[in-house]
């Protein structure tokens, strides 16, 4: 009991997603007109469609001095969990107990003001993170040395390069010494030298007996810094144990998740312009596609209004959710890029044909963007639809299995024959 730093029981967070014309915020005008509409309102649709649980019944304990990682794919609830533990947002259900002074690093450089100098921003940022002024003054020289910006201390930060900015921001954050440190993937900044320094500093913090909760997408960083991990999936904790096992579980989930159909149907269809249906036409059945064969993506777009400013593009993503191919619509006649041209309200079909795709073996999905170019508004983004798998059975080495970390793209290459050569001594 006495050595628990973080105790979480039954934590849940429910978000309402705006349906129809209710966005994240309302206007007084809408609220007032709602009052008048009250007698005429039809019974509200079930809440199931307009809300979702980002976290659901999450429970775990973290002991004092442990360094624990939190991993999971995008949308699994990691950021929501951190936000709740950092008291930025409130849980819908459940409770949390934090024993000790908490410092949260959800972003680097929070509150930096471009007009203020480096020196002034150190104090400002430190205060925002929760450090006392005396504490900042005491650590000032260390912070400046860590960031390597002695010469630029008194220039306004807007003149800093992005590298200097990040180094300074991280330097302040790195000197936060709370009993419980909550970190959200802030190590992906700066050049590799600086990243090593940051990783080292984080290790240092963990070794000094502080409790660290660390969200990351980098398995390498998680392996190095943490002894145990939580794996989140769909808002729930699916694994709580040693890091090695957690990483295996995470990878297993990644593979499972992409067993989706190579077709997509919008159900229920939203009320704005959207993709009604989509499919990927592969060389074989069930989303199996042989390397090098032509690949076609078919999209059925439904527009709820006429406009000449719609643009459409999509990316093919690999298993690590890295984009590999970017296709944006180009009108075959006018060659105008991006815009679909003038369309009236209605349903249309458009196809994208890749004559000789170079995707390496593995599983891929598609993420689409439908935007209005004039208002710069993202109308609809669909993530991870149209899962398909590229096989290389026609190639030599057909028994070769895909290894993690391999490139997703295969270029044409030509090797010369092996020729003996003499090098001068």
């Amino acid at each position, binding site marked *: *009991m*006495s*050595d628990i730093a973080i105790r979480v029981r039954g934590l849940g967070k429910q*978000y309402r997603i705006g349906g129809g014309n209710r966005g*994240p*915020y*309302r*206007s*007084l*005008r809408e*609220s007032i007109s709602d009052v008048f509409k009250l007698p005429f309102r039809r019974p509200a649709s079930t809440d199931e469609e307009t809300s979702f649980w980002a976290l659901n019944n999450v429970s775990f304990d973290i002991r004092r001095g442990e360094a624990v990682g939190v991993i999971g794919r995008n949308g699994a609830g990691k950021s929501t969990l951190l*936000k*709740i*533990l*950092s*008291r*930025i*947002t*409130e*849980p*819908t*259900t*459940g*409770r*949390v*107990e*934090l*024993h*000790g*002074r*908490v410092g*949260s690093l*959800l*972003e680097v450089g*929070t*509150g930096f*003001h471009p*007009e*203020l100098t480096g020196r*002034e921003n150190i*104090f*400002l940022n430190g*205060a*925002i*993170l*929760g450090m*006392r*002024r005396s504490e900042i003054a005491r650590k000032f020289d260390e912070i400046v040395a860590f960031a390597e910006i002695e010469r630029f201390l008194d220039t306004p930060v807007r003149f800093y390069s992005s590298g200097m900015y990040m180094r300074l921001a991280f330097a302040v954050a790195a000197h936060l010494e709370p*009993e419980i440190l909550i970190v959200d993937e802030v190590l992906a900044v700066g050049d590799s030298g600086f990243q090593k320094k940051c990783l080292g500093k984080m290790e240092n913090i963990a070794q000094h007996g502080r409790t660290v909760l660390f969200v990351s997408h980098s398995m390498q960083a998680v392996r190095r810094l943490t002894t145990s991990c939580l794996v989140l999936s769909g808002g729930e904790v699916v694994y709580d144990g040693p890091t090695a096992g957690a990483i295996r579980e995470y990878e297993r989930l990644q593979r499972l998740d992409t067993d989706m159909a190579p077709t997509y149907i919008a159900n229920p269809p939203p009320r704005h312009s959207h993709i009604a249906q989509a499919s990927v036409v592969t060389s074989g059945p069930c989303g199996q596609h042989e390397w090098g064969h032509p690949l076609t993506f078919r999209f059925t777009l439904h527009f709820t209004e006429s406009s000449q400013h719609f643009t459409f593009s999509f990316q093919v993503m690999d298993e690590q959710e890295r984009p590999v191919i970017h296709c944006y619509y180009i009108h075959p006649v006018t060659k105008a890029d991006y815009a679909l041209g003038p369309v009236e309200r209605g349903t249309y079909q458009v196809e994208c044909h890749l004559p000789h795709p170079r995707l390496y073996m593995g599983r891929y999905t598609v993420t689409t963007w439908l935007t209005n170019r004039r208002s710069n508004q993202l109308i609809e983004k669909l993530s991870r639809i149209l899962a398909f798998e590229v096989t290389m059975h026609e190639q030599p080495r057909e028994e070769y299995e895909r290894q993690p970390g391999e490139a997703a793209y295969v270029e044409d290459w030509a090797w010369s024959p092996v020729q003996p050569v003499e090098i001068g001594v």
Partner: protein
Amino acid sequence: MESTAPLDKTASPDLAATPHAPASPVIRIEPTRGWVAVRLKELWAYRELLYFLVWRDVKVRYKQTVLGAAWALLQPLFTMLVFSVFFGRLAGIPSDGVPYPLFALAALIPWTFFANALGQSSNSLVNSAHLIAKVYFPRLVIPLASVLGGLVDLAVACSLFVPMLLYYGITPGWGILWLPGFVLLAIVTALGVGLWASALNVEYRDVRHVIPFATQLWMFLTPVVYPGSLVPERWRLLYNLNPMSGVVDGFRWALLGAGAPPGLPLLASALASLTLLVTGAFYFRRMEKTFADRV
């Protein structure tokens, strides 16, 4: 209910028993329902952050404009000049026995502070969205910082009085000792309205369009351009429920000895201010849990 145990108590008895474990604060996080305590103690714990935010706003404001500190003087000064010409001279509005320019200035200085504070604080939460989404601190700090930031401008503007009083040969009486009290009342009023405005603006985003219009109307409902004595007797009490009327009348009386000494009207006005502040604080705290998700 969210609560933070003070540093000298421990949550569980075991903690006290362990020899090496220091008494640490326990933070409990749970869903809140309905009205939430204001927690002034926590606000006090974050006073250094409040100081830095005020310092940042003042510093940036004075660094950015070419006029810098002069702006704090020019705003009330030019308004006073225009009012003196059109309301004082041309329209011939009475001014409680003191020269109209002084009469107007004494009201314009606290009024400018209030109007600016209202404008700044109503946008403060939305403008600090990046902070609210990433760091924890009592959100009350944000509108508080934007109101207190105006105090620097108020102090600078007050310096206008010195040449003005000298020019007109008026020496303030003992009433001037009341001035800090009226400044405090101005702060309470600005804060009360600011808390309401900032919290409402997060939920109803068109509030910020209403504010400039509301501020203008409000000025005419306050004895800035005209003396309160212009208002017919039977409407006087209702009129004095305006929290700013107490501030403005008070400034005038303290600096110039003009108008009636503090009495029932001031009490009515001050009570209205306090009510706005307390209700504003509770409304703010109640809505606070939605800020990070909505801002």
